[in-house]
């Protein structure tokens, strides 16, 4: 059948207009490029967000015209730009970065850039992005609120704990053994409440990226010793032998945040005590290595069932064998530990056998690249 050239042109025009309308109707900023990264299309929302006119962008090289910046206000290298990664891998890339508007103003964006493939060959890319300034502000406010609420909750707890200790230590006169036991129960409960508040606060800070690292040179075993002192009461109540060993001859000093390190060790040792039968043993070993320090927390407790190994660091994870025997616990501790360690550029892993015990290993690098405050 012969095709009327006139109607073929009209049909092509109609298809092009439809594609144009479709592109312009996308509810977020959208930029399309050719295979060289030159901008071929940009929708009105993208123009509005970036503050450009269409004529100022069409035909321009996307990575050069739309400048991407990281959190430290440093221009992102071409090789690290999401569009480059999408071209190189042939896959969609989602990322959070900062763009600079036409007037020079920096703003955060959440973007997804996908290569346009024709017969497995990239013929261009399309990026969809949105300005997340408002979302970031809400996150910051949420974090501030939780921080303030935590502080307010802790103030009365501090008084309860301090006065309970003063009573136990005899500052207000003699107390009977039965009274001492009750006071220790109160202290234990305030410690648990403190742990909960601390966990919630730190998780919020990690998730919103607002946790502050105060790095100082320190010896890891000193932090471990302080944790042992704090948890010795909980261990003695279950007749658990809590020990610490320093292994090897290499230095165990790292530049890191003492409070965060103690929080990590404390979480692992608390778990070990909680999930070990009475009369068991928990050991912390610290070994200096060439590039890092390896810390191992070993218990001979209930162990983690093999089928749960993949979920150990997930939020709200609690192993089935622990839920049956131990009702307290939020399932947030190991999720928090992993998040905190990531901030300290550390790594964590474990070995466990049900009925025999668990070993958690983590490392802290001797060369810290993180920003310290």
């Amino acid at each position, binding site marked *: 059948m012969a095709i009327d050239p006139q109607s073929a042109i009209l049909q092509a025009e109609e298809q092009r207009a439809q594609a144009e309308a479709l592109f312009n109707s996308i509810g977020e900023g959208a930029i399309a490029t050719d295979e060289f990264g030159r901008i071929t299309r940009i929708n009105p929302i993208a123009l509005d967000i970036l503050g450009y006119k269409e004529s100022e962008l069409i035909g321009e090289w996307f990575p050069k015209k739309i400048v991407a910046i990281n959190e430290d206000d440093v221009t992102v290298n071409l090789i690290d730009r999401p569009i480059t990664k999408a071209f190189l891998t042939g896959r969609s890339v989602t990322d959070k970065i900062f763009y600079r508007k036409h007037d020079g103003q920096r703003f955060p964006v959440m973007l997804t850039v996908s290569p346009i493939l024709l017969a497995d060959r990239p013929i261009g890319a399309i990026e969809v992005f949105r300005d997340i300034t408002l979302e970031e502000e809400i996150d910051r406010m949420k974090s501030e609120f939780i*921080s303030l609420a*935590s*502080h307010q909750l*802790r*103030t009365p*707890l*501090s*008084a309860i*704990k*301090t*006065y309970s*200790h*003063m009573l136990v*230590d005899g*500052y207000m006169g003699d107390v009977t053994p039965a009274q001492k036991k009750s006071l220790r129960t109160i*202290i234990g409960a*305030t410690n648990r409440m*403190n742990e909960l*508040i*601390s966990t919630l*606060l*730190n998780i919020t*800070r990690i998730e919103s990226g607002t*946790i*502050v*690292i*105060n790095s*100082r*040179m*320190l010896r890891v075993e000193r932090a471990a010793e302080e944790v042992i*002192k*704090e948890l010795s009461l909980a261990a003695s109540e279950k007749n658990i032998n809590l020990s610490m060993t320093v292994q090897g001859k290499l230095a165990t000093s790292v530049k890191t*945040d*003492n*409070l*965060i390190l103690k929080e990590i060790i404390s979480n692992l040792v608390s778990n070990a005590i909680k999930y070990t039968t009475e009369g068991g043993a928990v050991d912390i070993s610290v070994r200096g290595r060439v590039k890092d320090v390896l810390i191992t927390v070993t218990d001979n407790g209930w162990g983690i069932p093999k089928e749960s190994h993949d979920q150990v660091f997930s939020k709200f994870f609690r192993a089935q064998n622990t839920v049956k025997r131990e009702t307290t616990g939020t399932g947030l501790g190991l999720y928090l530990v992993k998040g905190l360690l990531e901030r300290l550029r550390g790594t964590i892993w474990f070995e466990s056998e049900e009925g025999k015990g668990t070993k958690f290993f983590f490392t802290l690098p001797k060369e810290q690249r993180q920003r310290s*405050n």
Partner: protein
Amino acid sequence: MANILIVEDDKDLNNAYSIILSSQDHTVESAFDGQEALDKLKNFKPDLILLDLLMPIMGGLEFLQHFDLKVHPDVKVLIFTNMENSPEVAESYKLGAHRCIIKSWTAPHNLSRVINEALENSSTPATA
């Protein structure tokens, strides 16, 4: 023993620390905000200041801006707060604070230990 100034707006806690430290033969003065602390410092020369951060009238950071630790290098400031890992704590280090102790975690005997270490040790600052 040492002269210690407690700067803490919570009356119960201020009173508790005062009892604990006095029982160890320290000479203790109490202030309930930064401004009151500055007033007390006109007549009281402390070896150590136990300083809360969040207080009415004048908070701990503003106090440290007025009481310049570069001018008073012999005075140790221990930050006593419940705001762990916060920007305020980081700022207090920049202003010369010696250590930071988390109130709700610290039992009286640990507080005494940290204070004694701070008084004996004039080495580089560290977090508690």
